[in-house]
């Protein structure tokens, strides 16, 4: 598929479908984020980028055999990794036995917030969320340095800009 517009739309559809998958898995907070960020804003941002480039991908001249092999091997490795994973909803899975029971038991008394996800995100794991916020901020700084910094430099010495 050479039409990049169609690719962007398909990735948005994929994001929305995975949001539905998260809803079925009872992870509504994640589904919400996926629908807002994945299907919503990143599609718009990629479309904005697309408007700066071209609508069609240039056909590559190299052979497609090596990428196909890489994809197949990676896929097989991922499938192999799922073989000894615990079953869905297994109460004895490693993720369910570490700190999760403690959070679920303690958060009504310690934090008293009905949405345990918010309690874990903002209070128990406050450091992590601070780090995430800093990462988001760093993304904006990076984009500004790359795009606006370039434009300002060009404006300062317009003769070099040919």
């Amino acid at each position, binding site marked *: 598929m050479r039409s990049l517009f169609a690719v962007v739309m398909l990735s948005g559809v994929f994001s929305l479908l995975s949001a539905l998958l998260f809803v079925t898995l009872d992870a509504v*907070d994640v*589904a919400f984020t996926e629908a807002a960020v994945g299907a919503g*804003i990143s599609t718009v941002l990629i479309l904005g980028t697309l408007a700066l480039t071209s609508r069609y991908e240039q056909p590559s001249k190299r052979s497609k055999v090596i990428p196909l092999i890489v994809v197949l091997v990676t896929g097989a490795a991922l499938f192999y990794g799922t073989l000894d994973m615990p079953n869905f909803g297994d109460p004895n899975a490693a993720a369910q036995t570490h700190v999760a029971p403690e959070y679920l038991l303690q958060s009504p008394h310690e934090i008293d917030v*009905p949405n345990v996800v918010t309690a874990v995100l903002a209070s128990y794991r*406050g450091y992590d*969320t601070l780090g995430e*916020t800093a990462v988001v901020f760093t993304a904006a700084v990076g984009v500004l340095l790359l795009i606006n910094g370039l434009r300002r430099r060009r404006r300062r010495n317009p003769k070099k800009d040919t």
Partner: protein
Amino acid sequence: MRHHLILRVITKLLVGPIMLFALYVQFHGDYSPGGGFQAGVIMAVAFIIYGIVFSLDHVQRVLPPWLVHKLSALGVLIYAGTGLVSMFTGYAFLDYTALSPDHPVHGQHYGILLVELGVGVTVTGVMVTIYYAFTSRTPIMSDEAW
């Protein structure tokens, strides 16, 4: 998009409710799905949809770029500032008990509210910043090429 009358009217109708929904997701995140990240994105979308349908100049008159840049930094400052307040009052960094020592549970509520506000402000600022950065460059494709 001057010729799309329906889009313009619907956008004008929708921008207000979208912002209201963002505030709801932000401050009701303790009780329902949602929180700072989602609310920030929804709030940014309200501005971005206004920018897409009208023009970059219109939206930048409402939300100038310098303000957006300051907002993205302000959110991180609110978050880290909450941590510093609890540190300077003799508790651990980001220990919300410091905000209300007599009622630790209330302290947690205040802390979560403040921290989520910080996240929301930063995410709004960053998303709008990235949108401005991309769309303020001259597009190569014309409107009809889509």
